[in-house]
């Protein structure tokens, strides 16, 4: 897929309009995973604007977002960075070999108390 098309796809899947962003940084000010991310939440937006989905797709950030919606809640321009990063994640996991979680690694991750919802949630976010 071309760079342009990927950027378009991110816009479509996320249902958001990155052009509304006024670069205030409130998403990055809010994000609890900020320090773990290589590309920061406010940058998600400009990467999509620039069409650089490749960098976004290869970023660590994809797997650090918690979907806690704090950035979505507080964004004054309704840009919803949380949805943008999820769209990028979707594009990755929908490709062959894009899964971030495989069935083989699961047994090692389990423990006695682990609730089912943790597994299904991680499946949904990390895996096709």
């Amino acid at each position, binding site marked *: 897929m071309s760079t342009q098309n990927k950027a378009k796809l991110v816009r*479509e*899947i*996320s*249902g958001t309009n990155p052009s509304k962003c006024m670069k205030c940084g409130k998403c990055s000010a809010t994000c*609890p*995973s900020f320090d*773990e991310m290589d590309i920061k939440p406010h940058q998600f937006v400009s990467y999509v604007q620039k069409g650089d989905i490749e960098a976004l797709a290869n970023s660590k950030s994809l*797997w*650090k977002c*918690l*979907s*806690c*919606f*704090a950035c*979505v*809640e507080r964004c004054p321009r309704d840009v919803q960075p*949380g*949805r943008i990063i*999820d*769209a990028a994640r*979707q594009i990755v996991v929908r490709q062959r070999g894009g899964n*971030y*979680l495989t069935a083989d690694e699961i047994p090692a*991750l389990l423990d006695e*108390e*682990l*609730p*089912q*919802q*943790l*597994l*299904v*949630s*991680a*499946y*949904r*976010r*990390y895996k096709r």
Partner: protein
Amino acid sequence: MNFSYYPGCTLRNKAKELDAYARASAEALGFALQELTDWQCCGGVYPLGTDEIATKLASVRALAQARDNGQDLVTLCSACHHVLKRVNDDMRNNADIRTRANNYMMLDTPYAGETKVLHFLEVIRDVIGFEELKKKVVNPLTGRKIGAYYGCLLLRPGKVMAFDDPENPKLLEDFIRALGAEPVVYPYRNECCGGYISLKEPQMAENMCSNIHKNAAGFGAECLITACPLCRYNLNKAENNLPVYYFTELLAEALGVKEAALK
């Protein structure tokens, strides 16, 4: 007073007590939770992509069933509540998702978001009322200092969830007060516990939960309550943690039905 009830997968397994206490408390409060027949797992997280339809269908099925029962749909687990509420909002307000979901479902009557989704706590606040709850308390939890932990999923996004003020919620505090205990307000009660990140990066979740515990303890909380099994799991993994209970456990205790509930 009868409600359709969606327990969710975890309440069938690791969080059986969350469910059991809730059912017993509901009975004590004068309403019944009628479990939907053959509900399916909601998927744990709300599928954010506008093109994700199949992953929303389990929720639509549950919502449509409640509609056909002519009842509001009650949830307990924060994650299930979040997913059902948002899918319902899509079905009501997003014509594209509604059309496509209904095309898959082939229901007798297409579903268009008619069902009202209520969290158990909303039932207590909006249907029963805290005054009424107070009257039903037989074992007031006097003297206990309890921190409410809301997490993310009940509150955000505020426009869709419409649960409480997403930045300064009050519902659980009022709940704690109604049980006779003292609520401890601390600013991290709506900070994320790490959620599903704990599967692959447990250290991240642990750090976040430590901060929450530290903050709550700093304001004098002796224990935390939550509605979510995953939040509880993550919070329990942190070091030096406060005890974490399901809110229904304290509710059942105050209503005097705790022992009976687990039988």
